[in-house]
């Protein structure tokens, strides 16, 4: 079974000698929506970072295949150009770089050519309107002085413009008010039907708006249980105690 969009098999990862992931198995096919839930420190964000090639993590075992090819062979920027997108839990601020400039360069890099000015402006306007973002955002410096909600909106705006094949959304719902949550959920739901999605979240409320095909529970660096949307409902009501006890 190697024809999945993303196939993670027995993945072991450590940071400076400390094991974080201890044998993760995950398979996401094109068009599927997966959610990972779990206690703090379970390794959810680590998994997303490793998938995107963060240099701080060492893969000590297992394999990751993206679109049928080993992911380890790709540099970080090559993963982005190959259609992978990570919405950061804590995106970096880059003072002095205006959002508009950053978006144009990023889109040009991922698409392989600079977008036509007018077409890009129209595209940007449509996406920003959908997210309820003011045009003044474009002149601000990337994430510099942004509130938590503004950062998350900018992440989703990038996702909409970059049109990924696999979207990794790391706690994109945290820090969002109800209206913003709906706007973000709308953006995720409007991704092309072939796009795979991995949602990392602590809360069921996002999963009410973006209904996952599969919910995974991660404990101590392993996925210990899988199920449908009803699993998120069960976790909401009973917490993780029962699963941890098992």
């Amino acid at each position, binding site marked *: 079974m190697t024809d999945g969009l993303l196939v993670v098999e027995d993945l072991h990862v450590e940071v400076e000698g400390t094991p974080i992931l201890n044998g993760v198995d995950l398979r996401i096919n094109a068009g599927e929506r997966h959610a990972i839930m779990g206690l703090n420190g379970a390794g959810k964000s680590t998994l997303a970072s490793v998938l*995107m090639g*963060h*240099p701080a993590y060492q893969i000590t075992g297992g394999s990751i295949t993206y679109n049928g090819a080993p992911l380890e062979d790709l*540099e*970080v*920027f090559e*993963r*982005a*150009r190959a259609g992978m*997108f*990570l919405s*950061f839990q804590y*995106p*970096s*601020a*880059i*003072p*002095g*770089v205006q959002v508009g400039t*950053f978006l144009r*360069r*990023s889109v040009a*890099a*991922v698409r392989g050519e600079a977008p036509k000015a007018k077409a890009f402006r129209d595209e940007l306007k449509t996406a920003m309107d959908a997210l309820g973002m003011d045009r003044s955002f474009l002149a601000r*410096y*990337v994430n510099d002085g942004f509130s938590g909600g503004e950062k998350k909106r900018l992440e989703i705006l*990038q996702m909409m413009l*970059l049109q990924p094949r696999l979207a990794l959304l790391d706690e994109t719902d945290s820090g969002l008010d109800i209206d913003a949550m709906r706007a973000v959920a709308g953006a995720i739901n409007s991704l092309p039907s072939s796009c795979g999605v991995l949602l990392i979240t602590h809360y069921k409320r996002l999963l009410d708006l973006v209904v996952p095909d599969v919910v995974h529970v991660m404990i101590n660096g392993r996925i210990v249980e899988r199920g449908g949307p009803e699993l998120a409902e069960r976790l909401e009501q009973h917490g993780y105690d029962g699963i941890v006890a098992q």
Partner: protein
Amino acid sequence: MTVTRPAPLRSIHLWRHTPWSWMAPDAHSVSPLHVELHPPTPSCLAEGGGVDLHQASEDRFSTMVRAHEYTRPDVEDVARATLAELAYGGQHLDLHGDLTEVVHVDLVARGEVCAGRLHVRCTGHATLHIHLSGSAAWCGLHLTGQVTDGAHLAVAITDELGKDARFVRCDDWHVGRDARLTSGTLSTGGFRRKSDLRHHLNGTGGDVRIGIAVHGRGERHDDHHVEIHHHLGHTTSSLVANTACGDASRSIGTGRLVIAPGADGSDAGQVFRNLLLSEAARADAIPELEVLADDVAAAHGAASAAIDEGQVHYLMCRGLDRSTAEDLVVEGFLAAAFGELKHERVVGVLRDRLVVHLDCAQEW
């Protein structure tokens, strides 16, 4: 002409990091700095507005030096004195009324040794771009200015001197009551550079905002000394100096913020930030405060760091390769020096020049 003025001791703070012997011009005939004014279109001139360039009287410059001297008589003003010897006379640029377009002044340095002086007087609202270029091996510029009561002058100063050039710049600016000077400098050209920039807030309500971006490459040496004197109370100032040093370049930024006795209600801050892009690069930032009044707000800070790998990773996650990502971080870091200027036209001029410079720098 031979300049025989004795060099100041290196114990003098101003010349500690960049001795005058490194900066003094060699014995050569001196060419005057060519001043070319590109006036704005008449449609941008409000009634009574105008731009005039003419020969300046000598006292335009000596007055400026004397006005400074009473605040610090112990410094040997060798650079100003040398410029006075080399460039007797100078040009006077008069900006009056409200100008809605940028006034461009090109300064062209020709010959081996080239020196010039320019006095700017602003009585309205104006934006000025002074651009220095040319092939001179040594270039000296004494820039003086007066922003009269209630006026607002915004200045962008850029250069593209040759990569072997030495450049000495001295500024003396006086800002009147309820007046504002907004000044941005993009320092990219030349091999060795010493700037001694002094600003005087002479009237209550006066405001000075300074942004300086320095890009070091090769073995470039850039020394910026910036003084801001609050002579009266209820005056405000800010200084942001961002330096990105690569290769084996060296940068020094020294700030001197003086709040005179009785200048209560003054509000001032200065920040120096250094971005070190290589092991061999070196940058020093030394902000100093002399607060002689009781009720003031004064802050200073300095920081040096390597390029932030988190920022680079974030950009790479958006499809930029490492080199492009690092260049964008550097561009942003330098452009951020102008953020506090809060003047769209000046920031636009400086940002455009910065982007051109960095594009060219990749092939340097």
